[in-house]
C-alpha cells in the first residue's frame, strides 16, 4: 500500500539535452494517493510510458525523485519496489500452468506452499480463472492471459501499486467491457493504488476516478472524467477529450466587445473583462459541440452562423458551422431540427471557457 509522489521529475533519452523539446518528461510534480484508481492519458509519444517505467523502476529518471510513502526509491530496483506491472502484450510463462504462473511471484520469495495455495485460489476466484488453473498458460486466449498477468500482481500481499500499460490493446472488442468491469471490481475489493496508462479516453475514464492528462511531457490536468469534459484546464484537454473535441475561437477585445474575426460575440461581462486584462494575445474561447445552442430561427443574443453541412451519426448529428470565419462543430439531438443555410448560436455562460496561453482562466460570473 503506498502513496506515490513524483517530485520535479524529468527524463530525457538524449545525452546532451538542449531544449525542453528534448525531454520526454519535464519538471513533473504529482501525487497518486494510496488506494486510488488513476489513469494516465495522452497521445502516443507524450511520455506516459516513460513515466510508468520510472515509477516501476525499470527506468532511472534523469533528475527528480520518486517517493513511495514519503521515502525516496530512486535507487531501488523494480524487484525491491513492491510494484506490479501489466504490460500491453500479455506476459505469461508459457511452459507453466495457470496455477504455477500465479504462484510464481510468491515462490520466488520462498513463500510456504500452503500460503501460496491459499493466495492463488483466492485470486483465481476473483479473476474467474479457477476452472483454468491446470491448463498450460500458453493455450489461453488473450484476455485470459492478461488476467493471469494481472493475477501475478494481485497474489502478492506486499504489492503497493499495480501499473497497467495499455493492457486491453490485444483484447477482442466484445470482451473489453467485461475486463474493464473486472478491473473496477478488483480495485474496489483490494483497495490497491492502480495507475492505468492509455491513449484511449474510454479506457481512462471508465477505469479511473481521476485522470492525469499528459501532453508534451507534462501533466496538463489532473481531474475526474467529468471535470475533463466540462472544464478542461488546457486547450489540449479540450481537444483530446470528447469526440469531436472542443471548439476553440481565437478572440480579441476591441471597442468594448469581444471579436472572433469580424464577428462580435455575445458573451458575458466577466469574459470581456478577463480578455481585456489578459497579458497575452493568445486568447481563445472554448466551447464543446454538445453545449452550443443551435437555433433555426433568430433568438435573443443569438449569433448568426453559416451552416456548411450536417453529418447524420444515427441518433444525433454533427453540424459544421462557420462563425466569424472560424469553423465550429455543434451536436444536434435526434429530436431537434437540423438547420440549413443560417443558424443562430448561443454559448451558455457556464459552458464557455476562456483560455489564455492555452490554460483556462477563471471568469467572474455576475
Amino acid at each position: 500500500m503506498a502513496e506515490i509522489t513524483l517530485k520535479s521529475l524529468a527524463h530525457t533519452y538524449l545525452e546532451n539535452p538542449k531544449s525542453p523539446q528534448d525531454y520526454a518528461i519535464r519538471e513533473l510534480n504529482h501525487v497518486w494517493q494510496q488506494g486510488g484508481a488513476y489513469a494516465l492519458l495522452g497521445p502516443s509519444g507524450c511520455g506516459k510510458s516513460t513515466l510508468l517505467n520510472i515509477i516501476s523502476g525499470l527506468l532511472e529518471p534523469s533528475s527528480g525523485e520518486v517517493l513511495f510513502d514519503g521515502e525516496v526509491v530512486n535507487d531501488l530496483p523494480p524487484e525491491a519496489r513492491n510494484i506490479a506491472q501489466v504490460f500491453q502484450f500479455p506476459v505469461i510463462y508459457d511452459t507453466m500452468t495457470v496455477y504455477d504462473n500465479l504462484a510464481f511471484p510468491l515462490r520466488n520469495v520462498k513463500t510456504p506452499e500452503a500460503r501460496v495455495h491459499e493466495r492463488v485460489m483466492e485470486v483465481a476466484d476473483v479473476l474467474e480463472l479457477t476452472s483454468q488453473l491446470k491448463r498450460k498458460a500458453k493455450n489461453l486466449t488473450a484476455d485470459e492471459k492478461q488476467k493471469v498477468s494481472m493475477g501475478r500482481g494481485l497474489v502478492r500481499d506486499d504489492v503497493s501499486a499495480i501499473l497497467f500499460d495499455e493492457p486491453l490493446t490485444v483484447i477482442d472488442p466484445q470482451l473489453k467491457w467485461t475486463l474493464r468491469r473486472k478491473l473496477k471490481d478488483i480495485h474496489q475489493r483490494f483497495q490497491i493504488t492502480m495507475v492505468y496508462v492509455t491513449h484511449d479516453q474510454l479506457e481512462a475514464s471508465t477505469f479511473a476516478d481521476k485522470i492525469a492528462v499528459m501532453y508534451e511531457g507534462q501533466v496538463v490536468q489532473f481531474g475526474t472524467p467529468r471535470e475533463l469534459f466540462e472544464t478542461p484546464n488546457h486547450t489540449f484537454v479540450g481537444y483530446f477529450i470528447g469526440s469531436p473535441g472542443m471548439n476553440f475561437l481565437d478572440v480579441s477585445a476591441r471597442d468594448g466587445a469581444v471579436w472572433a474575426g469580424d464577428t462580435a460575440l455575445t458573451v458575458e461581462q466577466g469574459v470581456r473583462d478577463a480578455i481585456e486584462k489578459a497579458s497575452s494575445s493568445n486568447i481563445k474561447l472554448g466551447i464543446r459541440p454538445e453545449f452550443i445552442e443551435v437555433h433555426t430561427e433568430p433568438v435573443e443574443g443569438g449569433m448568426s452562423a453559416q451552416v456548411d453541412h450536417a453529418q447524420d451519426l444515427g441518433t444525433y448529428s454533427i453540424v459544421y458551422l462557420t462563425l466569424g470565419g472560424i469553423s465550429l462543430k455543434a451536436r444536434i439531438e435526434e429530436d431537434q431540427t437540423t438547420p440549413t443555410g443560417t443558424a443562430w448560436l448561443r454559448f451558455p455562460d457556464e459552458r464557455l471557457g476562456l483560455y489564455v496561453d492555452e490554460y483556462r482562466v477563471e471568469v467572474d460570473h455576475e
Partner: protein
Amino acid sequence: MNKVYNNRAWWLILPMLLLVAFSAVIPLMTVVNYSVQDVFDANTRFFTGTEWFKEMLNDPALQAAVLRQFAFSLTILAIEVPLGIGIALIMPKKGWQASVALILVTMPLLIPWNVVGSIWQIFTRGDIGLMGWSLRELGYGYNITSNPVDAWATIILMDVWHWTSLIALLCYSGLRSIPDAYYQAARIDRASKWAVFRYIQLPKLTNVLVIGVLLRFMHSFMIYAEPFVLTGGGPGSSTTFLSQSLTTMAIGQQDLGPSAAFSLIYFLIILLVTWVFYTAIMNMQKDNNKGA
C-alpha cells in the same frame, strides 16, 4: 467454375525436377544398383539380393564403428548444446561489443573441415604444437597417436571448438527475439536469474535448439575430414568413424557392392534417428497445445 487453370505453369517446376534428378535421384539409384549386385567389370555382374546387406550388418568392425559413431555424436551434443546456450547467454546484446562478439564466435565456422584437422594436428604435436608441448611440459604424457583416450579427447575438443558456435549463434538469435517486457515482468515478479532462464529463455529457445541439435547430429554423424587429418582413425581403429570405414572400403578396397549396401544402411540410420527425434519433439509440442 471460373477459376483459371493455366497448365503451362507446370513447366516452371521442370528445372527443379531435373536438378533433383541429377543431384539426388540418379546417384542414389546408382548406389542402390550396386548394393544388390556383385560387379566385376562393365559386362560381368551377378545379382546378390540382400547378401551384401547381411554381410555388412554382421561385420564386427562396422558394428564397432556404429557404436563409436553414436558415442561420439552424443558426447559432442552433450557438450556443445549447454555450452552454446551458455555462450549465447553471456554474449553482449548491444553496441560494438555485440558485433565483436558475433565476429569472434562466427570465426571457427568459417574454417574448412580439413583445415581444422590440420590446425589441430599441428596444435597437438608434442614437439612444435602449443597444446601438445604444454601438456608434456606439465608432465602429462600426451600422445594422440598411441593413446586412444588422448585421441578421443582431442577429436571431441576439436569438434566442440569448431561447432559450438553454431549452437551459440542460433541461441543468440532466439534470445534476441524475446521482448523486453518478459524480462521486465520477471524482475517485477522477483524471479531469480535461474528462474528467468528456466521459464523465459529456455522455452523460447526450444525451436532453435531443435534445429541446432538436428544439424549437429547429422553433421557429426558424417564426420570425416577432421579425424582423418588429425589421427587417421587411430590409434588402431579407436577413432575410425563410420564415414571413414566406408571410404576405406569403397576407395581403398574397391568393394563397391558392400560399400553401396553400407551407404544405404548409413543413410537409413541418419534418416531414422532424425525422424525419431523430430517426431518426439513435435509430439511434445502437440501435447502442450492440447492443454487441459
